[in-house]
């Protein structure tokens, strides 16, 4: 099975976010990591390759030169080959522009399965996987928590508001991975050593005119200061009164 999986370098979720020039993230002091949902995609790629008996995993990223680190992590986990579509402005690209750029690179290759994280935890757009699949004319199943591929048919499960959907689609297919799909492995020392010998191609990539323009970035409004109503059970009546009379939410 030929698998392409996609990764992005993002600020860690434990990091504090500050804004620079009203339109971009201030990277000073920010810890960057492999997008956590992409770890599920890499792990799934490795498991599906093992299950199919043979195959190849290409890990691809549209990113700045720094993204080599995240690609090396994916290689250390078990991907076979990496490709960096390099552009210094890639970290600020919107989902549609990213999808357009990735689609052009995917089109040149043979594949059975595309594996994405369900979202990147920076711009939280949830749209790159479905957009790439649509541009390629293949089905896509998003936010998958269970995946089984038998005889060229994908059987997947996902959670939707208030229920679970069981979805079927033929290969080639795109999947976006949700927490719960698998338990991503840590790269072993052997894996890290092996990754150094694997191919990481870097291709300077033009992203064209962005499809989304950022007019402004700002911090969310501060919440008005709240108050401690008291200690223990004795404070419950005051809370009920405040919820009813003041906040008017009961």
């Amino acid at each position: 099975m030929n698998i392409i999986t996609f990764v992005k370098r993002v600020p860690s979720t434990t990091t504090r976010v500050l804004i620079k020039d009203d339109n971009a993230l201030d990277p000073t002091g920010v810890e960057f990591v492999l997008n956590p949902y992409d770890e599920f995609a890499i792990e799934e790629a490795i498991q599906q390759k093992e299950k199919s008996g043979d195959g190849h995993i290409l890990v691809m990223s549209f990113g700045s030169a720094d993204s080599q680190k995240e690609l090396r992590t994916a290689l250390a986990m078990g991907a076979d080959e990496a490709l960096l579509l390099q552009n210094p402005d890639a970290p600020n690209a919107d989902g549609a522009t990213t999808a357009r750029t990735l689609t052009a690179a995917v089109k040149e290759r043979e594949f059975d399965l595309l594996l994405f994280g369900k979202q990147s935890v920076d711009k939280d757009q949830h749209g790159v996987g479905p957009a790439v699949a649509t541009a390629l004319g293949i089905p896509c199943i998003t936010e998958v928590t269970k995946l089984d591929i038998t005889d060229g048919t994908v059987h997947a499960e996902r959670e939707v508001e208030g229920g679970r959907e069981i979805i079927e689609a033929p290969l080639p297919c795109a999947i976006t991975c949700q927490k719960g799909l698998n338990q991503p492995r840590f790269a072993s020392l052997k894996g890290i050593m092996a990754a150094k010998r694997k191919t990481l191609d870097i291709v300077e990539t033009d992203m064209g005119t962005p499809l989304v323009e950022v007019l402004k970035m700002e911090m969310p409004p501060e919440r008005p200061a709240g108050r401690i109503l008291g200690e223990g059970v004795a404070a419950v009546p005051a809370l009920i009164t405040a919820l009813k009379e003041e906040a008017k939410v009961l």
Partner: protein
Amino acid sequence: MTHILVILETRDGVLRPSSLEAVGAARIAVDGLGGGTVTALACEKFSADASSLGNAGADKVLIASAIEHSADGAALTAARVAKELEASAVFLSATVRGKDLCGRLAAALESGFAADCTSAHTNGGSLSFTRPIYGGKALQTIQVNGPVVVASLRPNYFSSAERGGEAVVEETSAESGKGRVVKIAAKEGGRPDVAEANRVVSGGRGMGGESAWHLLEAVSDALPGSALGASRAVVDSGWRPHSEQVGQTGKVVAPELYIACGISGAIQHLAGMNGSQCIVAINKDADAPIFQHATYGIVGDVAEILPVLAEELAKVTE
């Protein structure tokens, strides 16, 4: 004349409540851009209530009676209708299905998209959207370039137009897709999903263990329409399913009332619930960061406070 297409979400023939919010947002946007038409499209079999959709802001409702739900089929249908109507924008709800469809539609229409928006603006005669990024730690205001503006709107942030009137209901053909939903299993427990609920009762590691969850269930039972939520630590410990996780790597919620019990307030959790209208924090550690963000706080042991809270709430909400 502006024409905005709204994609309705239905399940088992029933409209999801957030679809009426998207219709209302489209009405306000169309009116803000100088007037025009709002058309709502259902991509599955659905018996439309012409007056509730008309009241929400739709002029017309189109029903494409696909036999089964297919996300790629729905995207093809929606893209075709958007082109036929020469729509300048397509609005959806940012639900699991809506977020999925948003990216597909943008690609099918060769346009950009604005996902999970919390407000829409029409100043200067063009549409722009504000949306949380970095899990709500910052906001960005963006404008979509491209032939059609595709935008998904976060549930609980927009409202129906409440303008009276009836929508005209018509049928249209449905495209078929390669992927199909073969089964939908309803969630057990009868509580709404945490991302859609208007009230959330949420627990953290300070609850002590999964056996303490009956305390939260009792509070939730006393609050009609409420959902259960959990912190990441709780989900990572296996006490509760991931579907209940609130935070940057879980669900982002904005209910009227969020009750955080035994939750210290890690930055990634705060990002996921900071949009709540009223936040109540109950925690035995008076220095817990959650108290900086809560509207009301009680310092104390959840095991003692929650049963009393459940009892007192039941008296008020009955």
